[in-house]
């Protein structure tokens, strides 16, 4: 800045560093200045919206995003702004608008796995099982990959298509070193088919494996979530709740916590 002055680009770069350091107030300050200096500088707008969302300043963030979308129409950046706007809608509890924005983003960038995953979870929150399965089938056709394949298997189970799910689960189980997450999926499908004894055996095997992988002093939150779900499915409500609280203390994502809650409820 000493040589080039407080340009929009340099202010944005500094703001990115501030954000990385967790100093959102200074990041927002630099970014507001950057957008004033150069109203057409898209990276500053994008970064400012992101920081404002982290600060839960949703109204101002929405205004910045609207301006940003106007600037980047028909470019790959447009999708990124829709994804940001969907975060605001979801935080406000408007999952329908959030899903609509994610779909807009996917329309512009079919390859974005995060967007497909977000859409699937928004559909799950709204109990739109058929829409979720259809969207994931399309996503997997367009861009096959492990994450979306797994999400599709989960969606099939959630949607009651247990046999279809089992067809996908069996080869994965046979081909996995650690099997706990696939055992839990199979147990869920088996429970759907009222084969409770086989499901319980899978769940107990999953719990055993998870416990050998948990770090004694600070656990991998994704394993804690699986452990809690397995207990919820077994009907071990107290243990499942312990897992839920542990996962929460390890800052598990709201989606994961909501999944545990749903299994506790459904049990």
């Amino acid at each position, binding site marked *: 800045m000493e040589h080039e002055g407080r340009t929009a680009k340099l202010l944005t770069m500094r703001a990115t560093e501030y954000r990385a350091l967790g100093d959102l107030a200074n990041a927002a300050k630099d970014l507001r200045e950057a957008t004033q200096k150069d109203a057409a500088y898209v990276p500053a707008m994008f970064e400012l919206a992101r920081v404002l969302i982290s600060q839960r300043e949703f109204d101002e963030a929405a205004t910045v995003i609207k301006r940003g979308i106007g600037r980047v129409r028909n470019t790959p950046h447009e999708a990124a702004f829709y994804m940001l706007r969907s975060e605001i809608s979801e935080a406000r509890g408007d999952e329908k608008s959030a899903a609509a924005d994610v779909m807009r983003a996917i329309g512009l960038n079919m390859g974005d*796995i995060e967007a497909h995953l977000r859409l699937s979870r928004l559909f799950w929150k709204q109990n739109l099982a058929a829409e979720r399965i259809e969207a994931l089938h399309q996503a997997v056709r367009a861009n096959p990959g492990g994450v979306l394949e797994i999400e599709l298997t989960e969606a099939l189970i959630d949607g009651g298509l247990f046999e279809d799910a089992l067809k996908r689960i069996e080869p994965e189980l046979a081909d996995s070193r650690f099997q706990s997450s*696939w055992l839990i999926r199979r147990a869920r499908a088996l429970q759907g088919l009222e084969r409770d004894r086989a499901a319980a055996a899978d769940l107990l095997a999953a719990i055993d494996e998870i416990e050998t992988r948990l*770090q004694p002093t600070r656990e991998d939150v994704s394993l804690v979530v699986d452990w809690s779900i397995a207990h919820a499915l077994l009907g071990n409500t107290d243990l499942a709740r312990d897992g839920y609280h542990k996962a929460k203390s390890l800052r598990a994502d709201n989606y994961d916590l909501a999944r545990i809650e749903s299994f506790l409820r459904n049990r």
Partner: protein
Amino acid sequence: MFAKRTLVKLRACLALAALFITTALPVHASEGARPQEAELSRGPYLQLATPESIVVVWRTEGDSIPKLRWGAAPDKLTNEIAAKDIVTKVSIDVLAPEFVPRLYSIPHAEDAKRLENHRSPASTAPNTFQFEARITGLNANSKYYYAVFNGDEKLAGGDKDHYFRTLPEIGKETPARIWVVGDSGTAGLQQRKVFEAMQQRVANDKRPLDMYIHVGDMAYTDGTDREFQVKFFDVYQPTLRNTVCWPAMGNHEGHTSRGESGIGPYYDAYVVPKRGEAGGLASGTEAFYSFDYGKVHFICLDSHDLDRKPSGAMAQWLKADLEKTKADWLIAFWHHPPYTKGSHDSDREGQLIEMREHIMPMLEAGGVDVVLTGHSHIYERSMLMDGAYVTPTVAEGVILDDGDGDPNGDGAYRKSAGLNPHEGTVQIVAGNGGTRLGRRGTMPVMKRIILEHGSVIIDVDGNTMKAVMVNLDGAERDLFHIVKEGKVTPKRVENPWQPEPYTPPARPNTQSD
């Protein structure tokens, strides 16, 4: 003053004019037609090796009729891949059918601004043609020679330096030699000396590299196409033409490339596995991926601009990939180090903290052996450690072996055979590949903290991994071994050895790249 400003503007106008001029060539001239004059402008270099295939990439300025020949010897290139089977990508100015993929570009006005600020244009140079030839049906772990052509005119290759070796069969024990570099992309003297020191070491050992891992920041300042050319491809071409570089995106590449869209000069430069082509679980993106080299599983993550939380797509993929691998060794790499007090501080910076708090627990539950990173412009190498996820990082309760890992010193680090959860990881920060060095403090889990330019060479052979840091003068400045055999029960060291506290020089030598 006025003249200088005018000159800058004139330069900007000329560059823009060049961007606007279309080449009006078909893509590409039909086979059998007379080839155009075309100059090799990048490569050829190797990408996406598998046990039965490999991708050779090159660029020309001006259209050409691309052709690749390959075979068992430089003078026996008996096989051919013709233009119709070669993927062609072009710069935005080239007149080409809509289905032809375009190389990265930004609006002309933004490039003009960059030029005014003495920065290289972000867009790919006009009249650029990139060719990606995928050779299939090869034998595993086999050496082949190749050459690239414009029609019948040889552009490069057909000699002893242009060769490739396919990956060994997945799961088959095969020795691997890996070169690891980070934060090198300056085109400066230090970068070149680090490269030469590695070449010299490899020549002395008479053991060539099997792969090259770059942990990011390979093209300062903004990862533009031009910066990639000058600061990466021009420097490393002697290695890139016969050794696959497996990249991780750094924050500087992130100035122009984006993980979620897979667009930018970084993504133009590399072809990495999205579909599990080289082993591992299909990621569906080039931003993160995995591959197998014999019994070694490699995982590359994007620590820069993707969601690092456990519920995000990258971590979900990582979890599933770790569940699947049956390798004996696991090496993970990305840009932002989970543990450092070099030119960056992992106790304070968001991306570094998130990689430690969210990603490291998954990796250690999956049995990771070594984590390779950069970003912090220093060489730091940890003791054998596990479970250090809290912030700030402390050594108490997380060190499994506080020795130096040197068989001639405190002894090699020991782990059970195969991949087992929480038996210890060695963290290597290799951000000393060329740019200005810096240090802010002492990371208590580190065994070695060395403020010298250099790079890391790792050899994996059977149950032993050997790693050395070679500085820019060719001196071996660190060495450790990991031996995996039998059953080892990890025990936490009660009062682990601690590195000396850092006393900063009178004027701190830091840089926030």
